[in-house]
């Protein structure tokens, strides 16, 4: 597959009081064009990832909001798949390139979440669950149910959940764009404020503002990062309609497609940005992506197998947990961050995993160094 990442940009994630939604869009467009160093008129189309601008910012029609930054006003559309919006937008862009319709496209993910109260933000985020079947729940509660089941079935412990958080906060110390640069101990995580048992405050990814963008192209380029494969999986929206609560089938489907397209296996992957919206989510992802057998990812995390020097590095950016989770930007950030690591020579084959809702939608992208 001949698709390269010819430009990437990640803005600072966090509570960005000085920036509104339009400011973030402008920063993302200007940042990625500067990195790509291309004529802006070579952008054939734009895919905008955003979960809930209509609710957070009373701004819909984001395709036009991004396109107006270009004098030639390229066609633009918004892609929404809850927290997987970014990954889905990357997939949509890849499909458009593979169709031959376009040669160079911009994917921009953005979310401005902190202009509403935390209660309003939680309510907006909860619209990605089944409103009819999961009334009275919250996203932490849904993942807490998954955690409760995983702990009961596989013996996963509180300390193992905390070890995911400690690791990802350590990784974020080296990422200047991360929302948090703060270390935590296992005890601090395990004793943080209760949210939905067994999950506590420090098990949860934060509410964040942020923008990320990549430019993908099928044209010849000297840039080193190539898309090797991608996949998308779906499952039922509500947890109650899932066959097995111990796994996220959508992730398994997406991974199977992506590995097949890339002609690679799990042992080829050196680093992965996975969707750790909650600590249990990283454990589920590490198992459902096939890096560890069912019930073994939690122990592997404690044993240091998911950090530098281990089997593979999971969430070198700090993940959603420590880098932040501006929902629409997350899936794009994962691809942009991994591309930067490839260009820095840290890794040659990497994987991005983005999940929507409590696992109803999953996207996997596999990237690699193009050795020309």
């Amino acid at each position, binding site marked *: 597959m001949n698709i390269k990442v010819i430009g990437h940009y990640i803005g600072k994630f966090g509570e960005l009081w000085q920036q509104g939604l339009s400011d973030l869009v402008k920063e993302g467009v200007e940042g990625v064009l500067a990195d790509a160093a291309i004529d802006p008129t070579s952008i054939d189309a734009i895919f905008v990832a955003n979960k809930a601008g209509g609710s957070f910012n009373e701004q819909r029609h984001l395709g036009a909001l991004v396109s107006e930054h270009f004098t030639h006003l390229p066609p633009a559309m918004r892609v929404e798949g809850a927290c997987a919006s970014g990954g889905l937008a990357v997939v949509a862009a890849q499909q458009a390139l593979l169709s031959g319709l376009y040669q160079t496209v911009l994917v921009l993910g953005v979310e401005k979440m902190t202009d509403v109260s935390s209660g309003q933000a939680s309510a907006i985020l909860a619209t990605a669950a089944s409103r009819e079947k999961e009334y009275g729940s*919250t996203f932490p509660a849904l993942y807490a149910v998954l955690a409760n089941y995983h702990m009961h079935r596989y013996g996963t412990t509180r300390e193992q959940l905390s070890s995911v958080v400690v690791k990802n906060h350590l990784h974020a110390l080296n990422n200047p764009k991360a929302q948090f640069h703060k270390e935590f101990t296992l005890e601090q995580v395990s004793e943080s404020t209760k949210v939905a048992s067994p999950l506590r405050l420090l098990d949860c990814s934060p509410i964040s503002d942020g923008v990320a963008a990549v430019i993908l192209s099928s044209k010849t380029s000297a840039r080193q990062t190539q898309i090797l494969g991608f996949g998308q999986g779906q499952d039922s929206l509500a947890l109650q309609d899932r066959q097995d609560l111990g796994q996220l089938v959508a992730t398994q489907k997406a991974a199977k497609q992506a590995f097949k397209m890339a002609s690679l296996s799990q042992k080829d992957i050196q680093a992965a940005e996975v969707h750790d919206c909650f600590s249990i989510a990283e454990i589920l992802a590490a198992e459902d992506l096939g890096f560890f057998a069912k019930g073994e990812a939690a122990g592997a995390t404690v044993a240091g197998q998911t950090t530098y020097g281990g089997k593979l590095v999971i969430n070198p950016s700090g993940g959603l947990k420590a880098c932040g989770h501006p929902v629409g930007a997350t899936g794009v950030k994962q691809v942009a961050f991994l591309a930067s690591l490839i260009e820095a020579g840290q890794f040659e084959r990497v994987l991005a995993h983005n999940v929507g809702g409590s696992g109803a939608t999953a996207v996997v992208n596999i990237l690699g160094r193009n050795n020309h």
Partner: protein
Amino acid sequence: MQITEAWRSNKNWSKYLGRRAKVLAVSLMEVAASEQVAFLPYSYLLLDLDGEKISMMGVASQNFNIGDEVEIVLRKLKKEAQAEVIVYGLKAEKISSLTLDALD
């Protein structure tokens, strides 16, 4: 929950009300949406109802564990404002060992 949603949900009452189920997974919620804050802390449950899975809130002031038996009952789903229609819906209530003994 919009009142129209509450009305539509009523059609499920006859299917589930009074039936017994077993807890498959549970979370005790300490943080909730504004409509449910008055009930905190309360449990959110995934139940096995004769092979069918269903999820719902647990009644207030009960602790649930995996394997517990529950009965599906009618309770308030949200804290109503003074001039608002009271919204009832299905919740799970733990069947106490005393009740089970009495049934035996």
